[in-house]
């Protein structure tokens, strides 16, 4: 027994020593940093893309690194739910990345807190002027806060309607002569003629396309208007007056839009919709409810075109802008968001960051940039890329993409208002939408609540500024 105990002790001690040795070796050995070009200036780049998108982004970084011999971009993918806090702490602690790709609505908030540099602080005057003269208006609006521009949009996200042509045909909503599948621009142009001209017509189509099971549960959703922030501009409303810089919340147009959404949701039944939506667990790629036939008409972004090409290449579908109501509406209106590059205050290499941004956004070489944009199915911030040969060929092969290109240029597309409490405002607008749609408040009450909440926030901010003075 004693012999066995002694033996065990020796084994335990040896094992502990090996562990300690391994720990110390790890401690003293230099950790390889994996840099391919150690002689170049590093540009630390953070982003939130994962899986397939991460590969695309890393491809752009590799391409940039190969394209010149001064900088090396080192990308790091940060989990989206902690990205903002990590960025804030790193910047506050004086060790930020050189640039970061963002998609949360943080520009005015970060700009007001002096967390990010305005574009004119790292671009040459000529380059900044080029941005002002050429970037799509919506790209400029997303970057805007109190007279300056604070980010460079890398890719814009625009939403439109996706139609399942097989469902429309099955319901007799298309003439027999209409193309069965869109494979070129001529067919796309022809099909545009048959798409609904008004919101009312679209909703009527949607109702015809709904399918219910024997218990009255939704088995397929035709179309239902949703997303107050998207629908409000179509009804002539919206949330910001760009001329006088004031918020426009409780307006007759917005009320009309919210009432319309609420009324249409009520007809189909909120509980029924809720249950149906809960069952639609797939959100990305092949299991997208539209692709699997659970939805006939849906509102979604341009990235779906490339996803459908990959996961459902034979799916007969069409894209078209959301139509406005018959009266008092605006054509090609809606809500826009995007991915944009920010350069933090304290960036050690803003010029390297700018060189990378320029490369990505095609400031010097739109043709080359278009290769990346078309590979990912992104919308560019500059018309030069959209008009490049590469992009034109892409749109010829993917005619449904044209809808989004056209929407980019529309003056009626709006981002979330550029106020310093943008995320709070966004949440408040969503809350008003939810309260009205669920029937817990009337649309009028929901908008009054929204306005009151925002006015409280504005009063508080005004008072804080006065107190500071």
């Amino acid at each position, binding site marked *: 027994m004693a012999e066995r105990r002694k033996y065990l002790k020796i084994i335990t001690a040896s094992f502990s020593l090996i562990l300690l040795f391994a720990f110390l070796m790890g401690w003293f050995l230099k950790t390889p940093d994996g840099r391919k070009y150690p002689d170049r200036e590093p540009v630390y780049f953070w982003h939130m893309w994962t899986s397939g998108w991460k590969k695309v982004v890393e491809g752009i970084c590799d391409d940039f690194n190969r394209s010149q011999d001064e900088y090396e971009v080192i990308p790091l993918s940060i989990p989206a739910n902690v990205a903002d806090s990590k960025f804030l702490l790193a910047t*506050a602690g004086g060790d930020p990345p050189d640039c970061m790709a963002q998609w949360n609505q943080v520009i005015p908030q970060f700009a007001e807190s002096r967390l990010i540099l305005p574009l004119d602080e790292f671009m040459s005057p000529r380059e900044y002027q080029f941005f002002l003269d050429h970037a799509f208006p919506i790209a400029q609006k997303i970057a805007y806060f109190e007279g300056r521009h604070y980010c460079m949009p890398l890719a814009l996200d625009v939403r439109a309607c996706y139609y399942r042509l097989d469902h429309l045909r099955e319901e007799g909503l298309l003439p027999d002569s209409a193309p069965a599948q869109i494979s070129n621009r001529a067919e796309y142009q022809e099909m545009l003629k048959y798409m609904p001209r008004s919101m009312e017509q679209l909703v009527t189509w949607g109702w015809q396309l709904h399918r219910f099971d024997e218990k009255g549960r939704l088995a397929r959703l035709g179309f239902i208007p949703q997303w107050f922030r998207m629908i409000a501009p179509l009804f002539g409303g919206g949330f910001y007056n760009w001329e006088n810089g004031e918020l426009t919340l409780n307006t007759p147009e917005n009320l009309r839009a919210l009432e319309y959404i609420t009324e249409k949701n009520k007809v189909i039944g909120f509980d029924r919709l809720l249950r149906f939506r809960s069952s639609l667990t797939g959100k990305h790629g092949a299991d997208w409810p539209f692709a699997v036939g659970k939805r006939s008409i849906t509102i979604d972004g341009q990235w779906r075109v490339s996803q459908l090409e990959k996961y459902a290449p034979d799916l007969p579908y069409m894209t078209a802008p959301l139509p406005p109501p018959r009266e008092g509406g605006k054509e090609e209106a809606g809500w826009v968001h995007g991915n944009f590059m920010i350069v933090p205050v304290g960036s050690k290499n803003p010029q390297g960051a700018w060189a990378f941004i320029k490369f990505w956004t095609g400031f010097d070489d739109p043709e080359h940039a278009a290769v990346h944009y078309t590979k990912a199915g992104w919308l560019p911030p500059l018309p030069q890329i959209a008009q490049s040969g590469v992009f034109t060929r892409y749109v010829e092969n993917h005619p449904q993409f044209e809808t989004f290109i056209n929407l980019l240029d529309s003056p009626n597309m709006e981002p979330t208002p550029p106020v310093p409490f943008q995320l709070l405002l966004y949440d408040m607008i969503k809350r008003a939408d939810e309260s009205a749609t669920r029937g817990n408040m009337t649309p009028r009450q929901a908008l009054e609540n929204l306005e009151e909440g925002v006015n*409280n926030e504005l009063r508080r901010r005004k008072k*804080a500024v006065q107190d500071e003075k």
Partner: protein
Amino acid sequence: MKHESIKGYLFISPWLIGFLIFVLIPFAASIYLACTEYDIVSPPVWVGSENYRRLFFDDPLFWKSLGVTLKYALIAVPLGTFVGVGLALLLNLNVRGIRFYRTAFYLPSIVPMVATCAVFSWVLNPQIGLMNSMLRLIGIEGPAWLSSEPWAFYSLVLMSLWSVGGSMVIYLAGLKNIPISLYEAAVVDGANAWQRTVHITLPMLTPVIFFNVIMGTINAFQYFAQAFIMTQGGPEDSTSFYALYLFKRSWRYLDMGYASAMAWILFVIVMTITVLLFLTHKKWVHYGG
């Protein structure tokens, strides 16, 4: 003795330094920050009691989140205690395969929270989830658990029972600690199983119940991860727990001063409840001899 003390302090110094830097100093700093407007990056601006005034008079979501959290504490803590004690009593029986049962009931409490949330999102799916499928078998059409009011809140309460194994193990340890002589004496006096449970087991278990109730209450007031992952505070703020709202205020809206004031209110509430529990404990907690 002095030499011994120095050695003791030296041994605990890593923890002491960590506590000082990462707990005590931020704790003290937050007293000051609660009276400022602060966004992490810019210097804090003194606003006095304005944050507290806003919280109490201008912010309906503050009251809503406080109400949700209080309701959760009032329902989930007693429910968890009841189920935990019940399970411990069952798992204290001397039956075949008891070790397997104990392990099976304890295992869920060590499953990572994110994985648990992912599983429950599926289980509670109104159309294709296990819960409603089972209810359908007995002719009931279950609700949209996580996306309708008030079911989202009760879904989270229900989910809290999933990790009851953690407290169950402590109750089980408490049960093992009850002197066997008490039961022997009771049997000699003719006490039946129910009488032994009510008059011996439960009173002797009250110190452990007291401990678990205090810990459970503190945890209930800090409830965050499940609501953050599964409901994001919705629908209609019905699962907007206090800690979740505090997190949104600080990291989403960069309102750190306001969030600090919220944290201090939370601290005062938790302290008050803990003190109240301690004040009452002499009346119902028995420490044996």
